[in-house]
């Protein structure tokens, strides 16, 4: 635990009587790329603003490298923020924007010039120094915003949906850029997004949030493969979430059919949520799978087909490399390893989450 750079302890925050963050605890390690992921209103941006010093929590403490910074104003923190709307200074040219923080620290001209040159090279914007920020494209402005923060050598960079305003292609390009920059400067990144694909691509660790509490924390793979509740399963990627009954260990009943799985540790006949990823379902001949269904819809998505299969009153979502004829009756297969069993939500918070899902 010696490598912890930031510690959030029992953070609570309400706005106008509405609870945004509820007794939240989170540790962030040095040089980690942590992503706070969740739908809008889940509290992720508020949490970032608490780390940045723009919002003071109602309860709880923020420790930075062991010191309590809960009441420290933003200008005295060693973290810098990259805002969603870039927020460049419109009355200054690019170089003056980037040099802003260093000039405030009264560094020498040569030092500033050197650092600005380095930062501009880092974000691939050499030659734009004299340009006005308003004449740049969104992607270029965001690069300058990143340079403006990084040039001050913060120990931690906070990124508040920095790619949210960019188009898809540019967003992918900037994701790779960000990972490269992160590697080159070797500082901690705390990244906020509602885009699960972005989170899965870049993060060392993802913190899935909803209703002001952390739903699950872990690597991209563990979050995707083993969601801990229906909210996470539904939010990360597409999922079939079905009511099931755990007959006994390694055997679950779905829609009246007993299916083998690999999960253990539930009460006999306990009601559970069963999560099956669409890409894990395989379409085969009628009567040979665990259930039969009628193909109701077929959409070509480029890399795969998106197929809907109606079985009883449930419509399965299947992703497959091979098409299936609409209106044909097919069987569905699933590998026991790919079935994820989750306990039904108990707390009211989780219930709200379930309804949202």
């Amino acid at each position, binding site marked *: 635990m010696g490598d912890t750079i930031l510690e959030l302890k029992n953070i609570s925050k309400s706005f106008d009587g509405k609870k945004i963050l509820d007794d939240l605890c989170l540790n962030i390690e040095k040089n980690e790329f942590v992503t706070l992921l969740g739908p809008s209103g889940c509290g992720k941006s508020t949490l970032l603003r608490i780390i940045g010093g723009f919002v003071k929590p109602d309860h709880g403490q923020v420790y930075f490298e062991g010191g309590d910074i809960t009441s420290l104003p933003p200008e005295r923190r060693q973290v810098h923020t990259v805002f969603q709307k870039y927020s460049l200074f419109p009355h200054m040219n690019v170089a003056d924007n980037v040099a802003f923080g260093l000039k405030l620290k009264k560094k020498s001209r040569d030092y500033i010039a050197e650092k600005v040159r380095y930062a501009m090279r880092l974000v691939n914007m050499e030659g734009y120094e004299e340009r006005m920020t308003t004449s740049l494209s969104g992607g270029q402005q965001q690069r300058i915003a990143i340079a*403006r923060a990084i040039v001050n050598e913060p120990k931690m960079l906070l990124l508040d949906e920095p790619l949210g305003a960019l188009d898809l292609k540019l967003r992918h390009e900037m994701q790779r850029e960000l990972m490269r920059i992160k590697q080159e400067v070797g500082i901690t990144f705390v990244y906020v997004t509602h885009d699960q694909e972005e989170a899965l691509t870049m993060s060392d660790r993802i913190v899935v949030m909803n209703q002001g509490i952390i739903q699950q924390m872990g690597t991209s793979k563990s979050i995707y493969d083993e969601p801990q509740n229906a909210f996470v399963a539904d939010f990360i990627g597409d999922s079939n979430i079905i009511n099931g009954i755990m007959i006994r260990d390694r055997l679950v009943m779905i829609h009246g059919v007993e299916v083998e799985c690999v999960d253990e540790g539930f009460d006999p006949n306990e009601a559970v949520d069963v999560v099956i990823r669409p890409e894990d379902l395989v379409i085969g001949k009628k009567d040979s799978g665990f259930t039969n269904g009628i193909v109701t819809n077929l959409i070509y998505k480029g890399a795969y087909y998106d197929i809907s299969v109606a079985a009883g009153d449930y419509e399965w979502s299947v992703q497959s490399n091979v098409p299936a004829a609409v209106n044909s009756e097919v069987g569905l297969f699933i590998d026991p390893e790919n079935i994820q069993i989750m306990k039904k939500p108990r707390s009211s918070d989780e219930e709200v989450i379930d309804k949202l899902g």
Partner: protein
Amino acid sequence: MDKVMNRRSVLSGPYVVWALGFTVIPLIVIIKYAISDRTGAFTLSNILAIFDPVNLKALIFSLEIAIGCTVVCILLAYPLVLAISRLKFARSGFMLVILILPMWMNFILKLLAWQMILSSNGILNMIIRAAGITGFDISNTPISIMIGVIYEYFPYMVLPVFDAVIAIDADVIEAARDLGAKKGTVFWKIIFPLSLPGLMSGITMVFVPSMTSFVTADILGGGKLQLVGNIIEQEFIQSMNWNLGAGLSVALMIFILISMTFTVKKDEREEEEAW
């Protein structure tokens, strides 16, 4: 396309009539009077009369009053704007209405009220005496003229500055703080430079009328302190020398236009630098 344009240009008809009738034609008449003597012969002496010691003294006094009022308005406007801009929308709207409220009242009426407040036996002098300061009478001083002028034109400074400040993105201010700027630095490096266009229109709207507010000088200055506007008024009304009055008006207009090009020039230069 052309037809649409024609129909649109019809809409500007009332404005064209207004501009011709109340600005362009009177201006031509004034200039014609200014460059001719009583017999109608061409002369520049009416315009150059601004350099007569009496007139020049009034011009300089007007300039002092105008600069003083403009500076005081700026110094009062910024703290007020910063305070109001932080309020929630409904409250800031209420504050602005309070500020604008006196503008709905008749100008002369307000001046007469100020005349009573600022008179030798008025409230202000009573307070000054009660504070133990003797031998000072605020009535009929340049200060009382300035109070009247500032009271009248202060909203014209606040509103454009407020518009400029409120337009600054809150994120930009947060970004500055995030990069290490304390509140004072945020003001001087971010808020003030970004509010300059508003400040410029504020200055134009306060400075120019302050220079010529002869009614204020008449009522609050006791008729002894003369702005250049008072002299022009006297030439027209008392001396009935329309040529000289028009000449001084034109000289004043030229002077104001020159000082305004300075502010506009400054604006342009900044924009060029910015690019």
